[in-house]
Structure formats: C-alpha cells, structure tokens
C-alpha cells in the first residue's frame, strides 16, 4: 500500500494515476463488470450463435422482467432491507390489468390501476416496516403469500385472456428497432439512477442502509424514506407485471414464483452489500444481464435446466466471495 516515493516530483503524477485506477477498482461495479465480460467472452467462444444481434436482443429482453423487478429490489437492499413479495405482486398487478381489460375497461385505465395496485401493495409493506417497525424479511414474506393468494382469488386460479390485441405492444412491440421490454427496462434504470444519485431521497436511501440510527439523529425522516423505498419496489414489480402480461397476452396468477430470488441475485451480483449502504443500480443491471446471459448461453449449449440452477448458484456464491468485505 504505502511504498516509499523517491521524490515529490515523481510522486505527484503517479499518485494521480493510481487514484484513478483505485477508483475503478473500488467501484462496486468493478467485479460485476469483470464477471460480465468474462461470461460474455466465454459464451461467445463456446457458441457461435450467441453473438448474433438478434440473440443478444433476446438475451436482454429475457432478462428485462427480472431486471425491472431488481430495480425496486435494489432500493430495498440499499436501505438494508429486502422485498420478498415482488414476484406475487407482479403477478397480482398483471392479472388485475388483464382482468379489467377483459371486463371492457379502457387499457390505459387498466394499466394505471395495475401500477397503482402494485405501488399500494409496496406502500403497505413500507408502512409495516417503517411505522410498524417489523423486520422487512418477515413483512414481505407474509405479503408475498397474501399477494399470491389474492391473485388466485381474483382469477379463480385460471389465466385471463381476451386482451385487446394492441396491448401486446408492451411485451412484443419495437420502437426504433429495439424491443419494448428492453426500452422499458432501460428507462426504469435511468430514472432510478437519477433518483439515487441526484436527489436527496437517493442519498437518504444509502444513508439509512449505512447507519439508520445516525441518519435518524441527524434529522432525516427515516420512516418516510423506507415507506417510499418499498412503494418503489411495488411499482417496479407492477411494471414488470405489465411487460410479462403483455408478452404472454394473458393474466397469469401463478407466474413470478422464485422471481424474488433472481432479483436478489441480480442485486448481489451487481456488487451491492446485502447489509445495505453500498451498491449501485447500474451494477444491478449488469447483474441481471449476467443472469440472463447465463440462462441463454447455457440453453444454447444444451445444458439441462437442473444443471443450470447448480451453475448459477455456484456463480452467485463466487461473486459474493469475491466481493466480501470490500471497501466502498
């Protein structure tokens, strides 16, 4: 670390160069990007179809649902919390949208209702965590079950079909040659990035995760911050619900099982500390794409889906091992 410097004249430029290198090295993005590049190279070497422009768009599109959910999950994890309810909340919001449209409501109203419902569910989680002072893992475990049950109750257990055909635009359409789920995902990340890095609320998110007690004592409204965080998580789950319902052109009450785990994996692969206070939302994007790339590449290689799970699990462990105890 502290090597002897021969003279000040030599030391000055050297220190600058090292600090730029160290900034990159210490960025939470460093290892996620490294892993991303490594997997990307391996995948393109072992199969020639992988680098296809069409296939690459497919990879990103396949990762977009988890990617969108992982935005809200990032907010929760950055505050030191977690949101297990995202999968069923996504399914519930999607089925409500489908149900209302099938009942003849105008699509924009139905979509807005679904997004509101997801946000409201998130706000309820946030209320319990922030004002009820209950641990987020338990609160969202409970609401995960509740949301799942509500979705099944609402649909009677059957998928809802008969949606207006233009509704498929969100899941299957393109804009300027790019598939819409990709655009929706990128827009979500862009907004989240601005919120986290350029607004006071974003700073409070990290502060709460870094030291909740200090944040409270310095005069920040911690409960309000937490409430908003879980509301955002509910909202992004509902946005994912919009994309997936549109893609499938039916409201599927049972979909989204296990999505919370993939979203958590994306956040952790993206270099965030599970204890909170550290992480960047663009890292989460890298993490989500890394997972999508693994899915796609392993599929193309014909690896059985059982083995895929084992490999993904191993890679997550490896990522956490590499990233453990790193400085900010």
């Amino acid at each position: 670390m502290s090597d002897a410097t021969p003279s000040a004249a030599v030391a000055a430029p050297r220190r600058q160069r090292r600090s730029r290198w160290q900034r990159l090295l210490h960025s939470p993005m460093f290892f996620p990007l490294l892993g991303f590049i490594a997997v990307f190279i391996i995948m393109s070497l072992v199969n020639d179809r992988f680098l296809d422009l069409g296939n690459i768009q497919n990879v990103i599109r396949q990762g977009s649902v988890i990617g969108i959910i992982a935005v809200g999950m990032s907010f929760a994890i950055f505050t030191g919390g977690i949101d297990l309810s995202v999968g069923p909340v996504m399914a519930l919001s999607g089925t409500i949208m489908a149900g209302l449209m099938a009942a003849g409501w105008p699509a924009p109203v139905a979509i807005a209702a679904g997004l509101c419902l997801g946000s409201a569910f998130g706000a309820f989680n946030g209320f319990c965590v922030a004002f009820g002072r209950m641990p987020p893992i338990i609160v969202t475990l409970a609401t995960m079950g509740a949301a799942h049950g509500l979705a099944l109750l609402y649909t009677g257990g059957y998928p809802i079909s008969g949606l207006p055909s233009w509704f498929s635009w969100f899941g299957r359409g393109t804009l300027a040659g790019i598939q819409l789920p990709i655009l929706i995902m990128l827009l979500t990340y862009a907004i989240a990035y601005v919120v986290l890095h350029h607004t006071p609320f974003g700073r409070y998110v990290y502060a709460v995760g870094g030291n909740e007690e200090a944040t409270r004592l310095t005069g920040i409204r911690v409960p309000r911050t937490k409430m908003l965080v879980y509301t955002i998580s509910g909202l992004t789950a509902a946005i994912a619900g919009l994309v997936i319902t549109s893609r499938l052109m039916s409201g599927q009450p049972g979909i989204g099982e296990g999505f919370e785990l993939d979203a958590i994996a994306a956040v952790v692969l993206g270099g965030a500390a599970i204890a909170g206070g550290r992480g960047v939302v663009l890292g989460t994007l890298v993490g989500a794409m890394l997972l999508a790339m693994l899915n796609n590449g392993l599929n193309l290689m014909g690896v059985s889906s059982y083995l895929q799970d084992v490999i993904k699990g191993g890679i997550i462990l490896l990522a956490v091992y590499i990233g453990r105890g790193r400085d900010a």
Partner: protein
Amino acid sequence: MTAVLSLEQVSKQFPGVKALDNVSLTVAAGEIHALLGENGAGKSTLMKILCGIHQPDEGTIRLDGEPRRFTSYRDACATGVGIVFQEFSLVPWLSVVDNIFLGREPRNRLGLIRHAQMRAEANALFDRLEIDIDPEISVHRLSVADQQFVEIAKALSLNARVLVLDEPTAPLTPSEVERLFRIMRRLREDGVAMVFISHHLEEIFQICDRITVLRDGTYVDSCRVADTDHDALVEMMIGRRVENIFPPRQARAANSPLLLTAEIGLKQTDHTDSITLHRGEILGFAGLVGSGRSEFAMALIGAYPTRVAQIRLDGADVTFRSPADALDAGIGMLPEDRKRQGLILPFSCADNITLNHLGQFYRPAPFISRKQEAETVDAAMDQVRVKAPSAQTPVASLSGGNQQKVVIARWLDRGCRILIFDEPTRGIDVGAKAEIYTLMKRLAAQGIAIIMISSELPEITGLCDRVLVFSHGRIVAELADEAIEADTIMRHAVTEPRRNDVSHSVTEDA
C-alpha cells in the same frame, strides 16, 4: 519484587503512524499498575499487543521471565493474561455461567455440558471476589458494574495472573467504583498483577501502586504513585505545562433574549426537569457518565421517549416527534457515539457533511448540484480543519478526531439556532480540541445557543456560561459564571438527589 509481566522496547507501526516506539512496561505480582496517557498515546495498542490481538514489530514480551509471543487473543488467555475491554464482550442473552465458560464448557463423556460443575466453579469465583451474583441470571439483566465483575470472573476462571482493566470505571457510579476497587484490592492480596487504565487521576492515586506514562506512542517514565503528584503526572502526559486552550471568556451579553424553555419528564420516571436557554449562550450539561445528560438532550429533540415534553421555542409551543421535527425548528444534535450515532461509515466525507442539508444544493428543485455541493464541503472541511486527502475520501479511513470534525462540519451550514454537542472532543487530540472550542465560541457569538454535554470538567469550566449538573437522571444544580468550578460541579454530580426534590431548587446553593 518479581516481575510477572514485562514488555521490553516494544514498537508497533501501523500504516502511516508509529503507534508505539520503544515502549517498556513491567508489572509485578500483587501490583496495580496504572497506564496513563492522553487519547492516542498508545495505551490501547499496547494492551492489544499484550493480549495477542496485535503482534509487535519489535521488542519482547516476558511472562515470568520467559519470552513469549502471543499469536492470538486465545493464546494470551491460555497463558494467563486476562483483559476486560471497555466494550464488554459478554453475550447478553446467555446466563452468567454460560458466558464465563463460553467456548470451553466442561463436557461429560457423552459430550454434554456439565452444568453443575460450571455453576460450582462460578460460585467459587464469586466467593473469591466476594460478590453476590446469581450465576443463572441472564447477563442483560445485570447492571453495568455487575457485568464488569462477570468479565473479571471470566478472566480469573482462566487462571489469569495478569489482569488488564481498560477504563473500567468509566461507566460506573462512585459506589460501584468503590466495589470494583474492593475487588481489585482482594486480587492484589492474591498476587494478581493488574494493569489499570483510567483518565481519572484521583482513582489512580486511590488504588494504584506504580504508574507508567505514555505520550504520542513513546515511553515517558515510570514511577511509584507515592513519589508523584497530580501536576507532575499531567505534565508528564502532556509534555508541557497545561496552557489555557480555551478561548478567553467574554462577558456574555447580559440579558440575551430567551430562546427556549423545556420541561421534560422521561418515560418510566416520575419527575420532570426544566431548562432555559438563551441566544448566544453555551450551556453545559455536567455530571457523571450515565447521569441522564444525553437522555435529556435526546428527549429534547424527540429521539427519546418522554412522558412530559413541554417545549417553548421563541415564545411558541412546539412538539418534536422525531429529530427531523427538531431540525425543522432549527435544533441539531451531535451525538455522543460518532460511529454508532453520528457517521454513515460507508459514505465519503462530503456525503456525510451534506446529508442533512442537501436541499441547499438544489439546481433545479429535486436534483442536487454536485459541483455546488463540493464547493460548500471544501469550505466546511477547511473551517474545522479536517485532515483528509480529499472530500471524497471514505470517512471510515479517517482517524477518530477527524471523523469527529466531519460530524461537526455537518452542522456548520445547516443554519441551526440551537446546537447540542454531546461529548464533542471525545477521542481527539489537544490541538483539535482547541480548534473545536474556538469554533463553538464563534458559533455562540453568532447568536447560536449551544448545549454542551461533557465529562471533561476543564471543558465545562473553560467554556460554559452556565452549567446544569445532572445526577441520577435529575438536574441537581445550576451554576453560572464565577460559580462554575470543577470541585463544586463534582460535589453536586456525586450527590444523590433527594426524592421529591421538585425542580432545581438548589440553584442558589452554589
């Protein structure tokens, strides 16, 4: 005199600092040896080397004349060195006996724990120390003093012949200190060698046999307690005569307008206390640790549960449900424990400083201008002289004193009318202290009212316009101007308040 423990010419280098330079320490059996020095003098490092947490770069440790090298804390324990840390290392939800034998429970042939044996051994230990603690009780239900005695018992259960006590009296009441000293005297009779660290010189004169003084990581001198006195020790610690590091006392603007009155009764108490605060005044909260000073201040800003909280600010009734409410009204607090309550450790200096006034950097409304933020931060860091490579340096990598300055810098641009400083100079060096005192005086001159909670009497007497003395959760005295004297404060601080002693009727008795 047989030396049980001796450290010879020990040196230790940390990245960037020489923590210890050629330090020696010899402790004999049946001796209580005081280790003295200012914050940062190297006491803690020396103790950590002694108990195997750090390894010395140079020098030898001898136990009974044998050179030893402790590779870990466990290793040191096994050879008979016990330490009672400032922060206790007991598991709160386990019983006393389980704590004492944690990690080395006696087992029977089936591998199950032999509870009866453990209990019997624990009772024998307590008998030896002449203390009365139920070994089956859960540790979190014990008083701080009793927890400390359990720590001592735990060290002794390992047959410790050397016992290190790192500021054991800091959290204790005077009567508990007496109990601790009784135990220490018993152990001295048993031939246990003790190293005692304390900032209270009176305690050292009361209990210790010999003294070793450290200063800036170097060995100054060792002597017998009987051969020295208070002033000589202070001079050895500081290396010069104590100069006045306090800015000159200015005549306080007489009758400066009243800013705040507060009548506060904490939850689970049946009394209330009231305070008044004037513009531009520095009001001291004096008293022993645990006398309720911090709780009162926390209750004032809505961070501690209260039964009664009637606060009038500038003639208007206000209610604070949280520190955020208090901040909206212009009251800010620098808490006592900077790591736990003050800093966001993963944050940079800059992000820590601007956290509670990000609204000043809006351009446009919900978006923060990083550039504007950086300029303000640089100015604030210059003002309190934070020594850091840049504003973007992670605050976790700074020294304690600089971390404290970062916490202080947070409040400079916040525009508060009232600032509460809880132990503002804890753990920082003399030079930095003087800077902080000057800063506080300057803030007061600007009309800001300051409440300073401090355990350091020179700080209270040197800086405050008015002092409230706390004892056992109550305000027992109010002193102003010339009446603010260390011994008067101390006399009130150790006095148990009479019951039904409503409000501070003792105001006049100083």
